[in-house]
């Protein structure tokens, strides 16, 4: 059982929350100072999260940088404050730090209730980081639920369009998903018989989950968790909250939503469904991959019809998150040993989609700030007026459609490699999605950036320096992964190794 108290993760997770608390007490008052305060805090948290990533040693203990404190111990019930990272979560913590900083920088134009805005943005960041680092189920659930509040408020207060409707829809979908998860967590707690919410025990080879003692059949538990995470991912057919939430959220909300909050769903699938239920995952791989393929193709086809830039990107996210499901479902190989390609691809897709879609939303945010429209038919020919913005769109678009030398290609390739070994026919269908992706991305760029420019946009200016910061950060991260991916894949592979081993042990055992 991991123990000790390193402190680094606690600092990384709670720095934004503490900063929010200080902000609430009113130490910084005028809007301008608040913005820079927020920028410095977010930068500090990014530095901390990078340190977490760097200090994580692949090949060392499975969970590292442990912070443990037992807070509930009634003899029958143990719940701990237990933070730690493995190869799956360490990159996602860094991703959260990165997008947190970007979210602050794209929020500099906010003038309405600036203080509250940044308070909620910080609470959100703490909650997401908490989800990625919690190794105690109760704590995990707590962070999972807390995250709803700031997101709800960011959309409903600082959003656009039908923002109350969208915020409420987001809230209801996630809470319904959480209800399933809560039942599952309680059942796991009861079933494990160890009286503890400690996830590391449940993740041990062989697992503490014993089918004979289970309060519910393990297959049911698997699906309860799956539903909760699938809503968050989101997958078809529970995706419809996403386009509304994205479209009506403020830019930073969309960046965090697409960049890290969807990843909570994928993370949950890897951590819980793949990590604790390897046998069930293998049994149910076919429907999961099928859902993934439907999401890929259906999402892409619907994306083609969208005329609102944010809605378009939201649907493309549905399509791209389908690849995560396909990668996770790739464990059901037919003959031969499981390689980690599919799972690594799924994990990589979480990271790369976070940066790529983050960049797309940042770009749309800048565009909206200048033009006050996201309606594609109103736009056109902006490349000559806004070369930096056009460059951001081009790079993010090219990365999104899976162009090599950029990060998205690596995760796509790995997912396809892994999945073909399990479900060749379904994988071929999913590969066709890359044509559709090229279609909707290039058509979007053509209609917004190229062609003749309506006269009303003649006076537009390019992205400001403040706006260029998140663009540059995300572009660098996209190329860093695309040009030499091993620095990231090696960490993910280290985290996924126990799952692959457990699976291969399972097949060896069943023979």
């Amino acid at each position, binding site marked *: 059982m991991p123990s000790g108290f390193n402190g680094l993760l606690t600092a990384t997770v709670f720095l934004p929350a503490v900063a929010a608390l200080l902000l609430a007490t009113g130490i910084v008052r005028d809007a301008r100072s608040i913005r820079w305060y927020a920028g410095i805090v977010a930068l500090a948290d990014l530095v901390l999260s990078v340190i977490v990533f760097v200090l994580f040693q692949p090949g060392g203990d499975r969970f590292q940088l442990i912070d443990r404190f037992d807070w*509930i111990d009634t003899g029958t*019930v143990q*719940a701990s404050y237990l933070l730690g990272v493995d190869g799956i979560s360490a990159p996602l913590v860094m991703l959260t730090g990165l997008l947190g900083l970007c979210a602050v920088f794209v929020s500099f134009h906010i003038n309405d209730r600036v203080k509250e805005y940044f308070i*909620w943005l910080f609470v959100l960041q703490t909650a997401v980081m908490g989800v990625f680092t919690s190794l105690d189920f*109760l704590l995990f659930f*707590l962070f999972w*639920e807390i995250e*709803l*509040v700031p997101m*709800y*408020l960011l959309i*409903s*207060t600082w959003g656009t369009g039908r923002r*109350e*409707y969208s915020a*409420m*829809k987001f*809230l*209801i*979908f996630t809470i319904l998903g959480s209800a399933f998860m*809560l039942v599952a967590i*309680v059942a796991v*707690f009861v079933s494990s018989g160890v009286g503890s919410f400690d996830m590391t025990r449940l993740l041990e080879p062989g697992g503490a989950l014993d089918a004979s003692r289970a309060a519910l059949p393990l297959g049911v538990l698997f699906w309860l968790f799956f539903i909760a995470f699938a809503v968050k991912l989101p997958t078809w*057919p529970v*995706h*419809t909250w996403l386009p509304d939430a994205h479209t009506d959220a403020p830019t930073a909300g969309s960046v965090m939503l697409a960049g890290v909050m969807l990843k909570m769903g994928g993370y949950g699938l890897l951590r819980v469904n793949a990590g604790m239920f390897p046998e069930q995952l293998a049994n149910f791989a076919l429907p999961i991959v099928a859902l993934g393929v439907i999401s890929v193709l*259906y999402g892409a*086809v*619907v994306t*083609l*019809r969208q005329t609102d830039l944010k809605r378009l990107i939201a649907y493309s996210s549905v399509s791209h998150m389908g690849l995560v499901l396909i990668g996770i479902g790739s464990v059901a190989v037919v003959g*031969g*040993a499981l*390689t980690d*390609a599919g799972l690594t691809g799924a994990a990589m897709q979480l990271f790369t989609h976070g940066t790529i879609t983050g960049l797309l939303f940042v770009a749309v945010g800048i565009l909206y700030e200048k033009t006050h429209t996201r309606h594609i038919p109103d736009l056109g*020919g902006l*490349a000559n007026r806004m070369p930096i913005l056009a460059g951001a769109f081009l790079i993010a678009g090219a990365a999104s459609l899976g*162009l*090599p*030398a950029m990060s998205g*290609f*690596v995760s796509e*390739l*790995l997912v*396809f*490699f892994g999945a*073909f*070994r399990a479900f060749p026919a379904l*994988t071929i269908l999913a*590969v*066709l999605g*890359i*044509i559709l992706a090229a279609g909707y991305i*290039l058509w979007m760029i*053509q209609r917004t950036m*190229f*062609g003749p420019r309506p006269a009303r946009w003649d006076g537009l200016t390019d992205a400001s320096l403040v706006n260029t910061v998140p663009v540059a950060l995300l572009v660098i991260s996209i190329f860093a992964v695309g040009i030499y*991916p*091993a620095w990231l*894949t090696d960490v993910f592979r280290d985290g996924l190794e126990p799952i692959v081993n457990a699976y291969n042990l399972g097949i060896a055992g069943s023979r």
Partner: protein
Amino acid sequence: MLSEALVWAIFLLPVASFLLIGGVIRPLGPSVAKAAGYVTILALGVGFVLSLWLLRSHAHGVVYDFAPHLWLNLAPGASVQMGLLLDPLTNVMLVVVTGVSLMVQIYSMGYMDGDESFARYYAYMSLFSASMIGLVLASNIVQMYVFWELVGLSSYLLIGFWHDRPSAAAAAKKAFIITRIGDVGFLLAIIFLFFQADDFAAQGLNALHIPDIWTAAAPIAAGGAGIVAGGALLWLCLGLFAGAAGKSGQFPLHTWLPDAMEGPTPVSALIHAATMVAAGVFLVGRFFPVFSESEGAMMVVALIGAFTAVFAATMGLAANDIKRVMAYSTVSQLGYMMAALGIGAYNAALFHLFTHAFFKALLFLGAGSVNHAAGTFNMMYMGGLRKAMPFTYWLTVIGALSLVGIFPLAGFWSKDEILLEAWLGTGAVETSVSLLVFVLLLVGVLLTAFYSFRMVHLTFHGEFRGGGEQELHDCEEAGQPAPTGVSHHVHLGESPWWMVGPMVFLGISAVIAGWVANPIGVKSVFGLIPSHWLTDYFASGLHDGHHAPPFSIAMAVISNVVALAGIGLAVLTYAWPRGFTNTDPLTRGGIIHAVLAQRYYLDHLYEGVIVGRVFYRVVAAVTDWFDRNIVDGIVGLTGWISRNVGSLIALAQNGQVQTYPLVAALGGLVIIVLYLILG
């Protein structure tokens, strides 16, 4: 002997020039834009010298075998490594790519002079050159795919270079998407190889390493590993060929290439004539040891290639845009190369790739030079330019004669070799197939000769018909938008030396490159280049390289007679009626002419019917409707939300916006925790 670093430098120099232009020169503004051109020319000039050195030392027996560098480790038997595969095919391709690119970059100094995006142009050109060099160097199939896609990106950026023109932006997108349809096949072939990784690992091979793939495809009896065979091998080849067909504009994926002429003319010369479009031929050549194990695959390649050679040439007959004529000609000539590969004439195919790069780049640069003077690409508004631009005229005639395959120009030697191999057969496919290929390619020669000299006549002979000025005037009267590249800027005179110089170099190559690189009828050229050098060098790259058949005077006579007949027909048609005005005599062909001019209605079928009507208006629209009304309606409980959100908002708006849901959520959590502890 070159060190590994020097070989990588051929690739890295244009990368550096791309970064320098993009990161420093372009941000500094138009005053230093010229530097972008010099930097690119320098990078490619050094690369050209290094490539020549590499070719020379390799041909003299130096073996280059550098260990690849691990990029991504995937599984036992499959890892992605970045390496250098320096065989005859790569070495010759390097010379072609850097050489033609160098000439085009020099030419562009004149052609793009004064363009407001001069630096951006050279940045993209550097990116393209680097990607193309990376593609030909690759020793790993994933590495190859990486650069394969990157040349596609550069092509997209350069076709859409003048992106404020809707036609250019549309053409760029079309090119990318249609080639991507082929790329799905390529990608699936790679995925299939990964699928076989365990079998590769068992034999100590890497499923993604190109020479290992050759070994895997060869039967055990022939000293191979026999891992991929039968139907799987056929599908693997067809996947690769799909990628090749997309890139090289083979039927039915050819429609993007004529539209790609929206890009600046030097781009068309470099990317859409000499190098990138030949990448498909290169891909099949690269995996020739794999293809040649599957007769079915070879037959597909041969027949698609031969069909495309004729099919594209017929469309070239009815095109009025000089660049589009060239584009159809390129598609057709790439068909010759594919057909040659398919019938097993590996050396002849690559020899033709080599000569074609020179004469076709020359013809495009000639078209650009003409446009510089006439202000249009529409041949109906040209005519009589012979006197005003003598260099361009004679160089274009040389290029055309070389393309047609007239003795003793470069194109003759390579085309003749293809015809001869098809006539004799190599045993790779059945004789009936190679004879059919021969007939089609011979018909192609006639058509090529006709459209080439139709182009020469319409452009340079007769009376000048007003150029861009007249065309704009006519468009205005007819109330039509002016086509791309038409300007009032008409000045009848020779182009500047920046442009003519590279054309002269390419003109000389178009004359001598065939015979000098592959001498026939002598022991050697200057004691340096032995007889049949180039084709023998290509053959040395294969395990069982097939040597070229001896030169046949009969075949040379036949192909030249056919070619001269085509030229004669063109002269009769266009020079005879002295009063030629703006009406092409071919329009008397009525419905046949209409079908050709409408490109067999394939663009209309693909874009208008399949994508526009069936897919976008039906499939996508129905899915979108389904999503909004059915999925969102049922799963989203939309009705419930819209009924209840109102009252919820009313509550929340009592000045309690932030606190309400926070209290609700935290309250819920407290209940849960209490329940867990007490329960």
